[in-house]
């Protein structure tokens, strides 16, 4: 039996298009990407619960500062964690006196704008990594990270 050329061509076309057609449509689906830079500094732990004496004094001040100044002003602290978060975390880690001393020392480092590139590892795109664990005066907790290291957010 001689196959009709027209039907044969049609068959091949249908066969080709069904067998080799695109089936993975997920990657082509519409998406709504955000181009906004992730603002991790805004992930504040707004909390007024009192667990120690330090919380009575520090938490209201810090929460007020975050709400009325820092969150409005933007992520201007060059460090991660930011100076205010550093204060809260250092007091949680140690006590009110040592936490205060750690904060004043951090604030001195924050004021010094020179030589940061050679001194701190980087955190994310534009912050220096300066964790609390380096300053608790517990040598076993110090994990030295070389300055040219990039730490992902």
């Amino acid at each position, binding site marked *: 039996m001689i196959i009709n050329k027209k039907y044969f061509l049609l068959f091949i076309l249908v066969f080709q298009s069904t067998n080799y057609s695109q089936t993975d449509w997920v990657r082509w689906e519409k998406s709504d990407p955000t181009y906004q830079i992730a603002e991790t500094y805004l992930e504040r732990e707004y909390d007024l619960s009192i667990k120690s004496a330090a919380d009575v004094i520090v938490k209201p001040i810090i929460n007020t500062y975050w709400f009325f100044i820092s969150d409005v002003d933007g992520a201007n602290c060059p460090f991660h964690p930011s100076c205010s978060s550093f204060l809260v975390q250092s007091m949680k880690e140690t006590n009110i006196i*040592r936490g*205060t*001393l*750690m*904060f*004043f*020392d951090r*604030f*001195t*480092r924050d*004021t*010094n704008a*020179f*030589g940061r590139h050679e*001194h701190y590892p980087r955190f994310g795109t534009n912050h220096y990594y300066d964790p609390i664990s*380096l*300053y608790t*005066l517990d*040598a076993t907790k*110090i*994990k*030295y990270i*070389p300055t040219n290291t990039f730490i992902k957010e």
Partner: protein
Amino acid sequence: MLKLFFFITLLSSLIYSQQIDFNSPSNIKLFADYLFCDKDYFRAIDEYEKYLQIVEDDSVQFKIAIGYSAINDQSNAYKKFSSIKLTSSFYEQSKIEMLKSLYLQNIDSSYFLYADILTHSQSPFSNNAYRLKNSSLLLIKNDLPEKENFLIPFENEEKKSLSNFYDLKNNPPYKSEVRAGILSAIIPGAGKIYTYDYGDGITAFILTGLFAYLAYTNFEHNHPTRAWIFTAIGAGFYAGNIYGSVASAQIFNARVNFEFNEGVKLFLEEKNYFVPTNDFCK
């Protein structure tokens, strides 16, 4: 015409078709060798394993182990090296490779036990094991042996580097935490300068000096409230700087330890852990 076309198509497909048996043992090995020399160790190991199912070959077993070692899968590398038979020409070398794998996994008691066994064996690589063992002593906290005994297994060119490492281990250039604190108590910022944090030291001096001056002038001009606020802030910077200087000395010492360990590791890596290398890709 149509028949001629079909004939030519059929004929050419028969005559010029691929005749090579890619799955023959020799071709599998050839491909595996190519991948191995191309440093594609993952796929090379797969091909070598395929080859070993057909042919028994100790050099291929050794290459598989080398491949695992190269991709830093030291656990599998150790297993493969230990499976090399006593009759193989790679047997002795596999022993020192096993020591290297143990070192790269963890420097623990089993590593030192095996290093001791190998050092005191009749192996042609016993001195290599001795050198690796002594070098890795630098990375643990135990007391080192006497310098002369420590340097015995090393060659002259290595002795200089190892001697420096030995001296650094025994007398690391640490900064005293107490001295840093006292210096900052005497002159604000001096402790930080002592630990080479010049910028922080100068900033601490300026901040403390500035608030002390503000407090002084406000007391002098009879503004006690402002004066006490500046006194509190100045005192905070002063005390914080003493605290920070101690912390800075600790961080400095942590950096000294880190750089020392990295230096020893780099030295050993450059020396290939005193393990002889085979050039399988000539």
